[in-house]
């Protein structure tokens, strides 16, 4: 894998081409074969999900323009940027919950638009920002994640996968509790669990830590990191908290005005970049080897 990514920054004058090493990464500068685009960037070596030149319009207002990005297995990509910049929209385009106006989403080499909703759901799991609760047990809620694999009947195998996933995420003790009686953090974990039993190769998480306290934010992100590391899935998540993002994600996509402002790894994140995107001056200080963003 490599961490040089397409940028779209001609209009901004910032150039971020960091080639730094972070632990566990090797640099293989092979150009990804068949993917022509004019952004001088490279898609990652073994991108499992590739977004290519995607444009999205909402009632003919451009929301996303020329988005190109890829994510590899075992990797967390954080989409960052201010409110309303199109982070969630981009995430929803990645499994065609929203249909891009132009461009392509590729799952390995397959075009997502040529796949049925069920086929997409077998490969891409999605956790929404807001999750509705109902009078359903935790077990049944997670079992819903098997829907893309279900025939007329739920099989023993489905139950077993749900059981294993519940244990994996530490939810086994509450499997018969109703989700309208559990806390927000627990519901978030249940919803991530539901996405995991889809057995996807890509997980899309829309602000998985919003509305959670510090302790639960850490807990959720540890779970996600753990799933990514142990199950070799690729994860893309939108986030607001830069410090949490820097701590848990591998790569960062900064968005501004519906475009990619910069894409880089952890050491590539600069104070200028954050100031340009969020419009607030910051310092980046190192704390125990981890970059921290501190507003000035």
């Amino acid at each position: 894998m490599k961490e040089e990514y397409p940028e779209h920054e001609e209009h901004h004058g910032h150039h971020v081409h960091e080639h730094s090493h972070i632990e566990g990464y090797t640099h293989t500068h092979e150009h990804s074969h068949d993917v022509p685009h004019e952004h001088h960037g490279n898609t990652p070596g073994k991108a499992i999900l590739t977004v290519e030149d995607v444009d999205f319009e909402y009632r003919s207002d451009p929301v996303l323009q020329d988005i190109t990005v890829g994510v590899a297995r075992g990797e967390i990509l954080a989409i960052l940027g201010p409110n309303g910049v199109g982070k969630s929209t981009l995430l929803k385009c990645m499994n065609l919950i929203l249909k891009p106006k132009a461009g392509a989403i590729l799952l390995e080499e397959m075009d997502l638009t040529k796949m049925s909703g069920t086929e997409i759901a077998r490969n891409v799991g999605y956790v929404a920002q807001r999750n509705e609760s109902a009078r359903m047990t935790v077990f049944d809620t997670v079992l819903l994640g098997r829907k893309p694999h279900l025939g007329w009947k739920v099989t023993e195998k489905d139950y077993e996968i749900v059981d294993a996933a519940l244990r994996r995420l530490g939810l086994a003790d509450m499997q018969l509790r109703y989700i309208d009686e559990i806390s927000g953090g627990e519901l978030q974990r249940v919803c991530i669990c539901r996405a995991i039993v889809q057995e996807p190769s890509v997980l899309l998480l829309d602000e998985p830590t919003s509305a959670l306290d510090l302790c639960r934010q850490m807990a959720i992100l540890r779970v996600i990191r753990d799933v990514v590391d142990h199950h070799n899935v690729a994860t893309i998540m939108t986030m607001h908290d830069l410090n949490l993002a820097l701590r848990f994600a591998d790569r960062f996509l900064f968005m501004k005005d519906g475009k990619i402002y910069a894409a880089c790894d952890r050491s590539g994140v600069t104070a200028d970049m954050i100031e340009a995107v969020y419009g607030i001056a910051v310092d980046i200080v190192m704390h125990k080897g981890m970059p921290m963003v501190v507003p000035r």
Partner: protein
Amino acid sequence: MHLENGSTPEHYRAYVGRKIALILGGVVLAVIMFFVSVSVGAVSIPIPDIIATLLGGQGTGLYERIIWNIRIPQALTAVVAGAGFAIAGVAMQSILRNPLASPFTLGLSNAAAFGAAIGILMFGAGTTGSSIADAVVVNNPYLTTICAFLFSMLTTVIILLIAKMRSATPETMVLAGVAISSLFSAGLMAIQYFVDDTKLASIVFWQFGDVSRSSWMELGIITAVVVAAFAYILFKRWDYNAIDAGDETARGLGVNVERTRLFGMIAASVISAVVVAFLGVIGFVGLVCPHMVRRVIGDDHRFLIPGSFVCGAVLLLISDTVARTMIAPHVLPVAVLTAFLGAPVFLYLIIRGRRM
């Protein structure tokens, strides 16, 4: 992903078992109530005689005729109509994400009543005659039924078209339903103000929904529609669970939310339109049953749909039996009773503020 070390938890098995037992309990109750319903009435028939008649044994001719021609069609109609309203209510509540959605609240019943009134007005139905209930007869029942059905479906089409124009959000559908409903009540009032006494009586009489209106043929049609729609709605149970979890989550799980909404609405509307067209307006069963079942069984549509089916059948069967015998020798149309029964439950739901 490697999630191989799991096993089906025993607790979960037991929990599913309890839900299935509850539904089966409802079925048993329905069977018992069926016999009670056939047994009681102006002529009371002992249950052994009913069983003998059903098995083709030699009952007395009188019993046999009452059982086969009056009681059984009526009881079975209550069963399928109640079940039909209940599953239509479940489907509408889920796809419209609104706990108050039901065939009644969405205006399908008002539209049918208006259609029936048009039928009675235009096609000369309602000439004086004799009937078991009153000196009122709906002279050309099929024409009236067809009018009622058409107007009910017309309402559905309008709701769906409006939803289509404004991208099918549940809110638009519910609001459109409420608006159309009040339009048809206004139309119905206008008609009632201007028609002569006989027709007015027919129109009003039609509106008192009553399961005794159906004979074997009507029962056959209602049953076919309800069973087909039930099969479809049950087939879509996971889709409804997914929609309960949120539209985006449902899409992420591969559910075509718009199409599920559209077909679900059509299925629920066809059930309601057919039942109302044949039997008249019977309110609240479609609203109340799903909520009763939700309390006991929860929102999981795998159990909620069959549970509501059974609950609707039992509730309308009991209501009809009570309505027929409560103020004997007078016979109340079941709609009067369900309306009385429904309102307190409705208020209870509002006060409890139960979110879906």
